[in-house]
């Protein structure tokens, strides 16, 4: 049976088409549900095995990115979300979805607390939105089920607020100790870096993606759903000539891992 994935749409999030396509290609069965329809009937979440908070500009990024969307989700879906987590289902957030998840508190989700925000995704050090490709290095020891077996991967970033930040050093320590920093911005050689532009936003410890300690809840700033085709890569023309063009876009692997986890 294909696992059912809930994709929440509406209020300015806008990656529903490619996110849906990604889950389909990975063998899942995505269903797009408008936030208002979900809030009308939160219990429908029980029909799903996975949930995705997609990228975009929920509420125009007003009042800081993801904030207002998170406010609504937290107010209306808290019980169902807790049940979703307790049932060992999976949750993925990309870009604005990741921002929303941190503002809800789903990430990093330390100590089983999923509704107490511990970190924030703040404005990039450069002060504005940016779109270019970065190289990611994945944490081998991370419990993250989405990044299992990954080493490095190029993906595009498209955000203005992607800097992981907190004033509480203990939170970062705990994140590191538990392997929750599943993805980091790295230089061309795969070494995590603080330096712009390889690290596009100045994120603490070069963190690009965070999971909760169970590894089933994961969010990242770069866009794996924007790399489903080999020709999405900015150097596909060269890769084609030198024989390194992959058969499918590498971003698909995140979704395949998610489906693999669910079907067991």
């Amino acid at each position, binding site marked *: 049976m294909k696992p059912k994935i809930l994709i929440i749409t509406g209020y300015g999030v806008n990656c529903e088409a490619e996110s849906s396509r990604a889950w389909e290609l990975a063998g899942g069965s995505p269903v797009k549900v*408008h936030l208002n329809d979900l809030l009308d009937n939160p219990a429908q979440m029980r029909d799903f095995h996975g949930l995705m908070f997609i990228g975009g500009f929920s*509420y125009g990024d007003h*009042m800081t990115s993801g904030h207002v969307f998170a406010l609504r989700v937290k107010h209306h879906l808290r019980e169902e979300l807790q049940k979703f987590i307790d049932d060992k289902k999976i949750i993925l957030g990309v870009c604005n979805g990741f921002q929303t998840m941190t503002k809800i508190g789903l990430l990093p989700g330390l100590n089983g607390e999923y509704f107490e925000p511990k970190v924030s995704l703040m404005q990039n050090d450069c002060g504005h939105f940016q779109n270019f490709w970065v190289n990611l290095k994945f944490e081998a020891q991370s419990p993250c089920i989405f990044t299992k077996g990954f080493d490095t991967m190029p993906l595009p970033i498209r955000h203005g607020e992607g800097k992981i*930040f907190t004033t509480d050093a203990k939170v970062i320590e705990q994140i590191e100790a538990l392997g929750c920093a599943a993805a980091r911005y790295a230089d061309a050689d795969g070494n995590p870096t603080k330096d712009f532009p390889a690290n596009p936003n100045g994120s603490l410890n070069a963190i690009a993606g965070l999971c909760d300690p169970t590894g089933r809840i994961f969010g990242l700033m770069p866009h794996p759903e924007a790399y489903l085709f080999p020709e999405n890569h900015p150097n596909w023309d060269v890769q084609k000539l030198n024989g390194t063009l992959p058969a499918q876009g590498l971003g698909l692997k995140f979704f395949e891992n998610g489906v693999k986890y669910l079907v067991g």
Partner: protein
Amino acid sequence: MIYRIEIGLKPGVPDARGRGVIGRAKSALGMKIKACQTRDVYKAVANIKKSEAKAVQLGFADAVVARSALGRLKAPGSFDWMLEIGFKPGVTDNVGRTARGAMADILGRELAWEEQVYTSLQYFLKGDLTREDILHLGKDLLANTLIQTIQVFSKEEWLAAEPDLTAPIFDDHPEIKVNLIELPDNDAALMKISSDGILSLSLDEMRAIRNHYLHDDVKVHRTELGLPQWPTDVELECIAQTWSEHCSHKIFAGTVEYKDAETGEEELINSLYKTYVKASTKKVAEKIDWLVSVFTDNAGVIKFNEDLHLVYKVETHNSPSALDPFGGSMTGIVGVNRDPMGTGMGAQLVSNVWGYCLGSPFYDKEIPAGLMHPRRIRDGVHDGVIAGGNESGVPYSRGFECFDERYLGKPLVYCGTMGTLPVNVGGRPSERKEVQVGDWTVMCGGRIGKDGIHGATFSSEELRTESPAQAVQIGDPLTQRKLYEFLMEARDLGLFRCITDNGAGGISCSFGEMGKYSGGCECELKDAPLKYEGLQPWEILVSEAQERMTLAVQPECREAFEKLAKQRDVEVAFMGKYNDSGYFTVKYDGEVVASLDMDFLYETGCPKLHMKGIWKKPEIPTPEKARGGNRTKQLRQMMGRLNICSREYKSRIYDGEVKGLSVVKPFVGVNADVPSDATVMRIEYDKDRGAILAEGINPWFSDIDTYHMTASVIDEAIRRVISVGGRLDRIAILDNFCWPDPVQSDKTPDGEYKMAQLVRSNKALYDYTVAFGTPAVSGKDSCKNDSTRGGKKISIPPTLLISSIGQIDDVKKAVTMPLKEAGSLIYMVGVTKNELGASEWNRMLAEEQGNPWNYGGDAPAVDAKAALAIYRAMNKAQDEGILLSSHTPSKGGLAVGLALICMGGGLGAEIDLSKVPMVGKQKLKDDSILFSESNSRFVVSVKPENAARFEELFAGLPVAQIGTVTADKKLVVKGGKGATRIDTDLETLRKPFKKTLYGI
């Protein structure tokens, strides 16, 4: 009650926004600020208790990094000045609207109409600064005083002041009334009515309106409805909007007496639009079968595959962007999104394009009073289109900038959107437009306010000091995104019969336009949702408040339509019904306030303009020849010139990859830092067929001859598509004319010449679209791009943007411009001529020689027949997969082209200029070969083993191997007798190329 909520970052949290202010103040104003901390202020006007307000305050702040307070947040420890910037009453406050929604969620109830949230921003500044400095910072960098308020406090003043608890509530309650406007038989009085009311109606038009109201059948009709004999203000405003140059394109519709003083030929042209633009498309249509809907709808529609059509439209938004660069340009992009949305049964949005013609951001001479510095305009325009495009979830594909000081008075802001229409909607062709008698007249999306009143008539005027502030509209991408998703859903459920955009002229235009399909329309203005009270009926009718679409909804669908709209949080208003009365009738509170004969309004009423154009070739001196023969230094210099250098810094702030369909992106190459010839994208996730977007623009060629300018930009737009692998037989173009006023008058003593330039441009448009078989499927003209400020008139150079849309059967076979392999052979395709007129080279020489306008010479011409043979061969070579790379030289000619393909590939090249194909046996000077901007040329690279096949495909055509690709990252160009013309490593080319506009 008004509650003030202040939110600021916790100590120790870096304030990137504040740092940005420091950086911008330094680079734009030369102002040194030591520290800047920012805070968000929300003023919540709501019937709530303090405890509820506290909950709102806590809900608004991100507690991880920010602290908040009800009332005043403790001042930061160290600051000298506090600058607070808020909105003026009635101005769109998007963040405030979102905050209002958040407040409703926190309170757990729906809010009353008057419960609102107003936002402002505080800057706590430290530095050796005076009050004047802070005012300067506010007025000239951070705020636009047309729409925003500025408050400055010294530290002491701030600490002593009570927290400000006033909100910019729009609280104007004039008497709501409909005025009668008597039209006397007196020219001066008629013109006074037009100019006092910013109606922009000419004397002929005022006379025509007066005569109409004197007609017996008009009198009878009015008596029957109980209307007075003379027009109401509602009617006169409606006529003025409909007849505005912006809406009815009178210059393109009028008659022109054209005389060519060179040849002595004279002709009478009955409408440039009909004679050239429309006629050319009709002519091309005889030979092709892929045009679906052209010129009749909001955007052009062409066939793509068995499932989808492509829809494309490019607009300009110049005047609003001059007044408020951010709001005006945001409205430009969000507004042009509504054109595909309102085409046929409503198209899905796929990709945006943008392009700006501006004064130099480094302009250091005096700016005429009332105009903004071009750098400020540029920043605002970019920020507006970035916000509008990014927040709408539509990736950009193309972006360009042209810099010339003649754009100082009026910036040109082009915004375009490509979309897709399913071939069938509801089992029938999706391009249909039909309305039945009895269908509801529906407005949906945003609310109506004073914003954008007189936008259409105002943009039909030149920019004056007293240009009305309310002509500024501010886009709201979030409201439009909700509207868009709702409309796509409603379309697929069959919940409406017809749709169109609400743009210039507001519902006065869109209701009437839709009414044309059924033969009449009646609406009730009281049913329109308003942003605030106090709008006069005529203001409701002509407001250009944004994010609105007009629909025809079948009576049986009303309930389902309203239900879905409510569920999607989209406002809809059922304001009347379509009928077949022949009249556009408007009521206010049940009383008829306007009833206009639609035939008079749209077809027969507006008198035609009669204009003259006299062509005399201008004499422009040519620059002196450059000294010496080695051009390495000049090429490096040219790479950094404003119109050549990299636009990457700003472009990267636009989202180019949402939807994940891009194939050839705006920037390509091993470092992804050189501009692509054209962009290629998939349209569907399960197919490899793609669409290609490119453009051609060159205002400098206009100085020599707009005929060749037009031919050149059409050719450029086409050959860019060919270069990446687009099919020659599936290219359509859009024409966007931006002209200085071409009507002879006291204000425009050279109108006859400017009109002749417009005629010649149209002639070339006809000649070349027909010759190439590339139909113009949509377009727009804007013919009042002049500004008179401080007694100085600045007119733009005639500027024609040609945007091309092409198709490729398999995107995996797209060709990119960077060199790919050392050892491969470099071929030059097409003929290079001595065409240095208005080239980047001549302009550089002219500037250096102190006569910046002396860049004469021959402008590049186009030989369409020769070009077509080349394009066909290029198509074959691409199809066979033997092109490793392909680039079509443009500004800066072959020299810049070579630099770009080397930089892109991270590879060098050795080039022999003597091999470059020229006309017959003619030998050109090396400077001409290097820098001539001749059209229809390509520089391609081919593997040695494919050379024979390549040459076979191009047999009989002007093609020659001019060099080879090398691994040593050096560009070496030899000229006549083997002399070295260029010898440079790539980094010294890349550096100036990337430096000029980096961080600017």
